[in-house]
């Protein structure tokens, strides 16, 4: 009898006591902005099949340095590596890499091929998931080139890793042009120069007989447009970096300056100053026909086209001081974020003067130079005029341009009166400000598209 009762009671409480916790799976909601830290990566030296161990090590060095330059990754100290017998063909011992708390592990191998080329293969492992991270759907990549092109292999590897881990488009395998400045103030020599995105392979493209300013890359990466004082008058030219040939753009009666390619590379936007008034023009490079975009007694300059080609952002002092405006490329009226309809809508209303707007390759932001209270700033603002963010501040910060993926802004800085200009970069988060090393003082940087 008692046993029966006990059984009954037991059954009852099995049901009661057991059922509720089993059903209620603990629910945890983690909210917030996250605890940002650079992602720890381990990139051991590559396995070498061949004799050129030095080259293999240099390639790995460039990969590490590219990734580290983003401020998003932290390279693990090779002295902490436990597993030494890594092979690209064998799964690594993840436990060994968890100990040093690395999120990602890159295992690579370097080969010298019979035809004299070099090849680097690599895999990116997710240490905590214990699986390979696919790149373009493949569990690894192999890149081949001539030995003198080795830096590009390194940049491509870094780009693959960066893209896989951040979701951003690549940008390491790209170049920068800038104006290399030498000589005394009164007899300054300003030459067009080019370098890899990491500052390697610096070369001069023009001899420096005539001052050149504001170079801009075409989307093809083979052409540059800039303003040159050739013939004593500032005018916009096209320059082919492969042939070194320079060509005057158009037959404008006035001075032309502040050129920039349209996103499709088929046109150049520029400013012409005639009779004391500056207005915007667009010239088709095929037909060589130009079209006037603005007709306003104020100064309109620095046009930059949206990625979809429909809109143009520019600087104008039509409101009394230099501010940023957006217009439709076909000059039709648009609905302004501040209300009403107009041909040109002002998007900057905060204190200060705004200039040199550049539309982001992603289309959602405009980078600018801002001057306020004796300081200069590089900042970004939404195309609706919302969300202005100042990313840098200095005695003189000027001339922003976007990395091809729209994550980094390059600009030039004079840190104090009389100090020569230097190239700097800032990422969109504002966390990672870095100086780009150049052989001379440098200004007016412009970023190329990613090389093919």
């Amino acid at each position, binding site marked *: 009898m008692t046993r029966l009762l006990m059984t009954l009671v037991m059954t*009852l409480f*099995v049901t009661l*006591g057991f059922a509720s916790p089993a059903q209620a799976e*603990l629910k945890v909601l983690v909210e917030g902005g996250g605890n940002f830290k650079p992602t720890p990566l381990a990139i051991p030296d590559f396995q070498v099949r061949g004799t050129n161990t030095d080259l293999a090590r240099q390639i790995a060095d460039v990969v590490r340095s590219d990734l580290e330059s983003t401020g998003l990754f932290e390279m693990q100290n090779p002295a902490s590596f436990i597993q030494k017998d890594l092979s690209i063909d064998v799964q690594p011992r993840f436990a060994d890499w968890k100990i040093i708390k690395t999120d990602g592990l890159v295992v690579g191998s370097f080969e010298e091929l019979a035809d004299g080329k070099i090849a680097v293969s690599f895999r990116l492992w997710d240490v905590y998931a214990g699986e390979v991270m696919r790149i373009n759907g493949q569990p690894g990549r192999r890149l081949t080139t001539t030995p003198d092109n080795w830096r590009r292999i390194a940049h491509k590897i870094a780009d693959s890793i960066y893209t896989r881990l951040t979701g951003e488009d690549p940008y390491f395998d790209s170049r920068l042009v800038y104006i290399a400045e030498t000589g005394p103030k009164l007899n300054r020599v300003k030459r067009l120069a080019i370098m890899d995105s990491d500052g390697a392979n610096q070369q001069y493209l023009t001899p420096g007989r005539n001052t050149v300013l504001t170079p801009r890359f075409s989307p093809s990466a083979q052409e540059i447009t800039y303003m040159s004082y050739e013939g004593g008058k500032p005018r916009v030219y096209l320059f082919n970096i492969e042939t070194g040939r320079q060509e005057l753009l158009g037959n404008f009666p006035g001075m032309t300056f502040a050129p920039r390619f349209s996103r499709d590379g088929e046109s150049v936007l520029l400013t012409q100053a005639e009779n004391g008034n500056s207005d915007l023009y667009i010239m088709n490079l095929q037909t060589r026909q130009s079209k006037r975009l603005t007709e306003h007694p104020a100064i309109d300059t620095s046009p930059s086209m949206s990625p979809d080609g429909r809109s143009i952002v520019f600087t104008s002092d039509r409101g009394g001081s230099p501010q940023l405006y957006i217009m439709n490329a076909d000059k039709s009226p648009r609905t302004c974020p501040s209300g009403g309809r107009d041909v040109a809508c002002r998007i900057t209303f905060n204190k200060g003067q705004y200039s040199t707007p550049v539309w982001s390759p992603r289309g959602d932001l405009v980078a600018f130079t801002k001057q306020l209270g004796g300081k200069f700033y590089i900042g970004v603002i939404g195309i609706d005029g919302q969300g202005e963010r100042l990313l840098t501040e200095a005695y003189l910060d000027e001339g922003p341009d976007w990395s091809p993926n729209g994550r980094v802004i390059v600009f030039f800085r004079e840190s104090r009166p009389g100090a020569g200009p230097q190239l700097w970069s800032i990422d969109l988060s504002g966390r990672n400000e870095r100086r780009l090393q150049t052989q001379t003082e440098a200004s007016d940087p412009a970023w190329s598209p990613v090389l093919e």
Partner: protein
Amino acid sequence: MLRGLTVSTLVHASVLAMAVLSWPHQKTECEKLIERLEREEPGLAPIDILMRLPQCASSIDVPVDFVEIGLVTDIAPAQKAEEPPEEEPEEVIPEEVEDQPEPPPEEESAPEEEEVVIPDEEAEPEEAPKKEEPKKEEPPKKKEEPKLIEKQKPKEADDLDFLNDFENILKDKAQTERRQAPDEEPPKIDKPVLKDVQQTRQGAGERRGNTASLQAAMRRQIYVCWRGVSDLPPEDQIDVEMRVSLNRDGSLKGNVELVSPRSRPVGRSGIAVDVALRAVRKCAPYQLPEDDYELWKDINVTISPTQP
């Protein structure tokens, strides 16, 4: 008149008493059995008789003991039912540890874990003593055991044999009792069942309280490993819901399962999934009170990037 009433009452009472007293003389089968048992083994406690003759429970007068059994029984099923699932992970852990020798990072956290776990751990010692032998937590648990048993002794010294079967339960009960006000103990005798139910309810209430603190503990630990996705465009900063199964030592049991989205999306929102999964994987083993293992062995985690 009054005297007559008194006499009448007395007479009636004595008649009733006679009847009651004479009734037992017609012995039932049970009473005979009990009498024989008492003759054969003098000094047997009522509870022992009950154990030998369970079919005669109604004839054996052991109310106090019965109450205690009821109490024990009440909590026992929940505990017992929970045991089997616990055992499996126990066996699994050592294997995993062997495969992946990551003691250094885990050891750092170990002390904290012990601090948290020890006080709540009484329920476990006998559940899996053999399996837990290699574990660090064992000694502290054993220290707790004697105390618990002592607490029971004064009232039910005789019952210990019987209760051995339910030691773990007793400890759990003792644990519950310690949390409760001692005043509640006396009424046990009268309403054993009701009392039991009350205790269960209180236990459940505590669990609800634990749930909140477990959630907070998990949230805190995961957040440390979650680097955020503020660099992604707003539309790609998606919520990621995962199901996480944990071993008793807080390490991951198997893989983290994606609930929503069901698989890693193509495009930038896939990065939000990567980052969320990495956070949950990287922060294991989790430090949670082992006593509440049943509550956290399966956890549904949602990482929700809120925009500034």
